[in-house]
């Protein structure tokens, strides 16, 4: 597997406070990478650096051969209230392409199927549940056919049942679309279910203290959550997290 994105010796300060210290990271093609750590450890800052919303104080970020083809999913769905589902998802195409509107709409309808939101294209955001809003947000990210998907705690505001469902569907979708994903979360349960690899960040220093591959002998379905492998992974990550707090 070749690296899609490589971060080398990244340092980021906010005034005198060091948020990230010598972070090295590679994302491989088709990999689901979870960036795990307690609140305030610099995971979101690291994600913002990768997409160019922040600049590092030192170090460099390099993308592989093809152009930066990525999409970003925010913690909140960030849907525009005056646009219906179809128009919200169409937004990146309107901005980035010259495609005729019919063609754009066709693309939207096919993406809606991928996120299990058929026949919702005419609804407005205030008519959607939290889970549906997040699906629309993911569909909007997928509309421009990205190779890399950055997700900043997208399921943190969802209820337990919806969150578990969204995790299963996201994992299946990313496998099907062969997406490389960097997923920020502070839940070890979420990370252990979704990730191919977990990077655990230190609570204070903004350093990566664990780089752990996650593999299971079974499919990532609901049954996985009660398996011994899954439990063992969670225990291992939790123990390391406790260490970082100590």
């Amino acid at each position, binding site marked *: 597997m070749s690296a899609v994105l490589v971060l080398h010796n990244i340092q980021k300060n906010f005034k005198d406070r060091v948020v990230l210290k010598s972070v090295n990271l590679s994302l491989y093609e088709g990999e689901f990478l979870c960036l795990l750590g307690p609140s305030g450890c610099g995971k979101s800052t690291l994600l913002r650096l990768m*997409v*160019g*919303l922040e600049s590092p104080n030192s170090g460099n970020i390099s993308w592989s051969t093809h152009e930066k083809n990525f*999409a*970003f999913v*925010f913690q*909140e769905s*960030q849907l*525009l*209230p*005056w*646009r219906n589902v179809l128009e919200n998802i169409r*937004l*990146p195409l*309107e*901005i*980035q392409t010259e495609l005729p509107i019919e063609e754009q709409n066709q693309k939207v309808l096919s993406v809606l199927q991928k996120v299990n939101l058929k026949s919702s294209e005419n609804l*407005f*955001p*205030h008519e959607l549940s939290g889970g549906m809003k997040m699906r629309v947000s993911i569909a909007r990210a997928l509309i421009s056919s990205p190779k890399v998907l950055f997700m900043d705690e997208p399921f943190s505001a969802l209820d337990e049942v919806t969150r578990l469902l969204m995790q299963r569907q996201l994992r299946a979708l990313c496998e099907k679309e062969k997406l490389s994903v960097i997923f920020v979360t502070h839940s070890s349960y979420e990370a252990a279910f979704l990730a191919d690899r977990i990077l655990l960040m230190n609570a204070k220093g903004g350093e990566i203290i664990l780089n752990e591959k996650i593999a299971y002998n079974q499919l990532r379905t609901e049954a996985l959550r009660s398996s011994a492998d899954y439990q063992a992974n969670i225990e291992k990550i939790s123990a390391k997290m406790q260490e970082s707090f100590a």
Partner: protein
Amino acid sequence: MKFLKHINLPAFISLLIVIFFFEIGVYFSWIPEFLFPAPSSVLKTLVENKSDFSEAFLETFLGSMTGFVFSVILGICFAVLFSLSQFLRKSILPFAVFFQTVPIIAIAPLLVIYFGFGMPTVIASAFIVSIFPIIANTLLGLESSSKAEIELFQLYGASPIQCLWKLKLPTAYPSIYAGLKVSVGLAIIGAIAGEFVAGGGLGALIDSARTQQRIDIVFGALGLLSLMGLLCLSSLRACHNFLQKMRPYGLNIRE
């Protein structure tokens, strides 16, 4: 009976009570008629001089609404320019405060010198009084997009014009609407102030009635001005409700 649904019943009842109180008060001479005429005599004056009143009403309405439309167009354009250019904002916006702070009655004589007697001065007066709330509210609205929304557009590589058209202007809608509601009333005030010095419309009618001590005409004109204000605000609200049905702009201000 359908129209009854649209009437604000408590306000309507309050108005009827006040009218009844004044009618009784004047009838029993508890209230001096030379200060407050009986509502029935105001109504009689309105009916007897209906052609004068309707002509004046239309003239004031036309003057104030033309000034209002100019201030909406120019006010929004200025606010957009200020939101796009910090330089323009810093160099021009402080002077726009002039429109807010200088009393129109003080500059109305100047307007007569510049625009002459009649409609142009009335329009200019309505425009000067009503433009500032539109600039201020639109600018506030244009700057109310969240950081995450701006970043979303930044990630899509949107140009400043795309960002303005697809994000900032729709986000600004609730503020623009609030500005319009304030400005439409101010435009009527500005038009009346202009008519006091430039002639024509309900302003001139009030001024001439004042010199003749015809308080019934003054009250009749004031009633018509209130009606004009209500008509303008209702029209704005109807447009707003129509837009809200089409697009849920600013759900927090749905009426």
